[in-house]
């Protein structure tokens, strides 16, 4: 029996993976996407209420799915999510903030306080919201689109170019790190069998070759830029303006303008509500108020 094999989906490489060409994000101008990142990352700054930030995280999840990002890829951020949680809650457990009137919470041998814990929970959810907004952006955009967005926003050419080179350098740094580790493994080093102290020392030793390679690359790129007539001022041979060929490929459309206005307006509303009336403050959180009442405080 013949089995129908589905045609492979055309994927587009992004900074954190690849996304199908059919992703609706690609219908938007890179500037719209960059403004989207700025707005999405800024919104949690004005929201303290954990429920509201959890709702915001749900919205991000919808955008991940709608943007055709493979959610399985998000698993690699789990260690980061856990590590941040571990250290934040460890600090509030071992060294909680205290002031008179704080409600104590006893957890085994440790005593922490409701007010400290409340702030840590709120901060953690805010950080996660900002982190996943950033992951969403880098999962759906390529370096080229970041540069186009920056240049459309009239960021000086040298600055946008340095951003591009930095993004590239980060990738190359990771690639060099992988090569060095593979070379060690090929010579029989099993880092998983090392004690934590030795492993830490090993990671410290990686820095020497990694920085040496990075310095050599920096020199090579500097020579390559000079050989092709690049100057930091962005000056061109004819003395006229620099024509940005790649940027000219993208056109800002009405939908982009509408979305940008909508996003900026949304951010302004959230900021206004919080600054003006503390709409998203911790004191307004139903969950936290219920917890405080449960602990015997005056919710």
């Amino acid at each position: 029996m013949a089995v129908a094999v589905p045609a492979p989906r055309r994927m587009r490489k992004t900074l954190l993976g690849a996304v199908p060409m059919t992703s609706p994000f690609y219908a938007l101008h890179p500037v719209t996407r960059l403004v989207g990142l700025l707005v999405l990352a800024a919104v949690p700054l004005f929201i303290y209420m954990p429920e509201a930030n959890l709702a915001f995280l749900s919205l991000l999840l919808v955008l991940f799915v709608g943007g055709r990002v493979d959610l399985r890829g998000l698993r690699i951020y789990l260690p980061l999510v856990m590590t941040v949680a571990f250290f934040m809650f460890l600090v509030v457990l071992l060294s909680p903030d205290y002031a008179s009137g704080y409600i104590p919470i006893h957890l085994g041998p440790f005593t922490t306080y409701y007010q400290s814990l409340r702030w840590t929970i709120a901060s953690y959810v805010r950080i996660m919201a900002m982190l996943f907004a950033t992951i969403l952006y880098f999962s759906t955009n390529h370096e080229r689109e970041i540069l186009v967005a920056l240049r459309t926003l009239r960021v000086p050419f040298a600055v946008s170019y340095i951003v591009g080179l930095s993004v590239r350098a980060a990738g190359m740094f990771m690639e060099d790190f992988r090569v060095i580790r593979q070379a060690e493994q090929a010579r029989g080093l099993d880092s998983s069998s090392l004690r934590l102290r030795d492993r830490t020392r090993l990671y410290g030793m990686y820095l020497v070759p990694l920085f040496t390679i990075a310095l050599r690359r920096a020199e090579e790129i500097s020579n390559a830029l000079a050989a092709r007539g690049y100057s930091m001022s962005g000056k061109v041979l004819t003395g006229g303006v620099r024509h940005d060929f790649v940027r000219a490929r993208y056109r800002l459309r009405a939908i982009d303008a509408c979305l940008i206005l909508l996003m900026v307006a949304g951010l302004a509303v959230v900021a206004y509500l919080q600054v003006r009336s503390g709409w998203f403050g911790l004191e307004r959180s139903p969950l936290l108020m219920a917890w405080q009442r449960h602990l015997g405080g005056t919710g």
Partner: protein
Amino acid sequence: MGAAGRPAVAIAGLSWTYERRSEPALRDVDLTIDQGEFLGVVGPNESGKSTLLYVIQGLIPSNFNGIWRGRVELFGKDTSAMSGLERAAAAGLVFADPEAQFTAMTVEEELVFGLENLGLDHRQIELRLQRVSDLIDLEELYDRSPYDLSGGQKQRVAIACVLAMEPRVLLLDEPTSMIDPRGKKEIFEVLRRLKDTDHTVVVVEHNLEELAALADRVCLVEGGRVRPPLPAGEFFARVDELIEAGLQPPQVAQTFAELARAGLYDGPPPYRFEPAVSAAREVLSHG
């Protein structure tokens, strides 16, 4: 004398010592390269071949620290009086490691980068891209990252990036040193096409076999000294001298040198295949 009559490159009394080095990388170099000439530069490692290209392009001394003496001219103009942009427009340099020269994340952006530096408008850029694509087949690679290409493709892109800027002098530093045999073939095919254009081409290359088929003149660089370039036939006839310098002359030239030593052949050793076939027929007919 008009610009057309001037040599493309004129180096006089040049010595260059890199910072923190006691020995000069180049010493007392006098070299003239004619317009439209294809010059091969050969020599052992660390002999100063790459430094020679950097000097011609003007990267030395503008981007390097060291002690400079002498004068380098590109089409009659002292390179020390030219801006980086003017030098890039006059002499394009392709580095040995193609990855070391990539500055963008897609092939198209990489190609466009130098053209934007020249101040060309969109229409002119498109024309240049078309021209370079006709010479070096690249269009299907435009959307790909230059880092994801094969060695041969990477070097083709690197050459195309420089060619797109349409410099009158093209300097290639060991363009086939980091690629597989198939990639080497691709690059020599590009060089063959370049030979048919009016570009002045200077190639540093270890593969003398392939270079012999292309170069008008060849010069040997040894210990920082650049020997006067010789016509390819005369250069490759000095088989023993080349072997002594640590080089691998073309196989046919070595074979005929051996035949000459055995008294079976008395002409200058051929260094290209077709003349070698005729010479072999002659040897056999006398045998």
